[in-house]
């Protein structure tokens, strides 16, 4: 590392000396060191301003990432009770993970499928529910708009890990929700709804709770966009006799999709990498297959966490990280590069 840095420094020194010589030969003015410093505040200001953050990004993001990517091609993991000295194994780890007959392989496929299902539902339920809510609040005839908005925004002012922990305790077999249902007589006095103990229930529960957590944010973000839709469009549609559903599907939805595509992609990516919700709510439970390392609500990221931090299978963890990245990158880059906001970035 240090050597590379020194070589770079040396190269730059020689380069600048050569430049100075060229300038001198051409009979031009050679800048002094002071002027060089001064230029850092003017034409070279990007060097001054970008360097510190680049150094940190390099040290704390790029470097660890390179480490982990390298690790994916080694056998660095905990076998038995100790960490083995590692060696390069090529694509061996990828092969184990894709081999659906091994435990790791079959777990990988089931986790992958659930991750995609989760990301899809989590993104679109939030988006649609948030949009409907925003429209309901912004309707001309709705009274006390500020009050309604306040009610929903209140829940997103509470830090999400707090509200998730609260949700988790409320939904325990003896938690507040079950107690409430028992007191109301809707379920038997000793019965409880299996929110986190039945695989299917658990999956639905996390998606529903994600709606609870995410809708207020969507509401905030979409309110502004909704208010920007030209009112004439709606009036024209109404004059032409369109009903509410037609107006929504032909005007509101296309307009919103047009504006918010980058936002949707970001949300989708965020949901694939959504660690907090799953880890704090269900912790990946319930575990249906005792031999596998993942529970039935584990996403790729929470599984990655379990593998690296709890089990210390660093190599497999790194492979999962890379695969998550590949899945996201292929989808996101294609959509993002085609989106309006990327193309028109240099517009002015």
């Amino acid at each position, binding site marked *: 590392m240090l050597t590379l840095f020194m070589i770079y420094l040396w190269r730059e020194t020689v380069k600048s000396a050569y430049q100075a010589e060229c300038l001198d030969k051409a009979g031009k003015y050679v800048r002094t060191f002071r002027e060089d410093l001064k230029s850092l*505040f*003017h*034409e070279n*200001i990007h060097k*001054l*301003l*970008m360097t*510190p*953050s*680049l150094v*940190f*990004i390099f040290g*704390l*993001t*790029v*470097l*660890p*990432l390179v480490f*982990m990517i390298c*690790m994916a091609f080694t056998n660095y993991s905990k076998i038995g009770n100790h960490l083995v000295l590692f060696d390069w194994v090529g694509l061996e780890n990828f092969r184990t993970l894709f081999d659906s007959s091994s435990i790791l392989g079959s777990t990988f496929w089931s986790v992958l499928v659930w991750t995609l299902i989760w990301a899809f539902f989590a993104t679109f339920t939030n988006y649609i529910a948030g949009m409907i*809510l925003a429209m*309901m*609040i912004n309707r001309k*005839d*709705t*009274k006390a708009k500020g009050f*309604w908005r306040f*009610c*929903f*925004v*209140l*829940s997103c*002012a*509470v*830090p*999400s*890990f*707090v509200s998730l*922990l*609260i949700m*988790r305790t*409320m939904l325990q077999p003896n938690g*507040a929700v079950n*107690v409430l249902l028992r*007191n109301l007589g809707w379920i038997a006095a000793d019965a409880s709804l299996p929110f986190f103990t039945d695989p299917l229930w658990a999956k639905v529960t996390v998606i529903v709770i994600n709606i*609870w957590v995410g809708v207020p944010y969507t509401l905030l973000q979409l309110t*502004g966009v909704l208010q920007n839709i030209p009112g004439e469009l709606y009036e024209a549609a109404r004059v032409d006799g369109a009903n509410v559903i037609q107006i929504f599907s032909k005007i509101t939805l296309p307009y919103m999709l047009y504006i918010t595509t980058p936002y949707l992609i970001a949300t989708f990516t965020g949901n694939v990498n959504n*660690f907090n919700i799953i880890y704090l709510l269900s912790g990946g439970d319930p575990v249906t297959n005792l031999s596998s390392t993942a529970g039935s609500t584990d996403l*790729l*990221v929470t599984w990655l966490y379990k593998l*690296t*931090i709890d089990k210390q299978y*660093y190599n497999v963890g*790194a492979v999962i*990280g890379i695969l*998550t*990245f590949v899945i996201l*990158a292929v989808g*996101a880059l294609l959509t993002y590069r085609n989106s309006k906001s990327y193309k028109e970035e240099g517009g*002015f």
Partner: protein
Amino acid sequence: MAATKQKSAKRKRAINNTIVHIVLAILAVIWVFPIAWVVLTSFRAEKGSYVSTFLPQGYTIANYVRLFTDTTILNFPKMFGNTLLIAICSCILSTFYVLSVSYCLSRLRFKMRKPYMNMAMILGLFPGFMCMVAVYFILKALGLSEGGLIRLALILCYSGGAGLGFQIAKGFFDTIPLAIDEAALIDGCTRWQIFTKMTLPLSKPVIVYTVLTAFIGPWVDFIFAKVICRANADYYTVAIGLWRMLEKEYIDSWYTCFAAGAVLVSIPIAALFMFLQRYYVDGMSGAVKG
């Protein structure tokens, strides 16, 4: 004929209105319910995590008192101090990174600009947890994983990647007319002066937004702090502390205190958030109007 039609339209509208309001009311109750419940729990007199009644039987402020006086097992005041210190430092650092990077990307055209933006996008797609272990090893190699230096390590962690989150600030700087910059250049301003004397004063909303999001980050992050602190309970942040209170060995005696702690953490964040909301909308809509 026309009158009845008008009347029926009016009635339909009234029915629609009632339905919308009822739905909104139900939804609002669902959304407020958990928050109300945790506030109630924080004042609950009886101990234990699970009770058979929904509303508390007695009210007390002992939970709050205990949170600040009983420091033997879980030292809440210290965690609070840790988090505050980390939040302030990382907030200053990351604000500087974000603003300077987004200014450069928005205003200057240099060789590394497009590559940098592409790199930021690609890095954003990697799961952050993937490199967490490696970050820990790097910090350990630098000797930052023991003692009071853990705080420094956490500050570096929270602010380190800030330069990648330039999108919103850059979008805001983009809306400041380029003509202002050009006029200043002709008048003999350096770029640095333009940045500090013109761009920054014009971008108050986005600065407030950046500062507050950076400040809130350490309060709500849980996983980085857990990996880096490991067993060093002295340097825990509030988030880990609250999480620990719900672990099996503590939950019975600490449950109501957890609720109290949750309320205490939420109040400043909620206040900041309400304050931020106004700037958030402004920050999205651009700097110089008209």
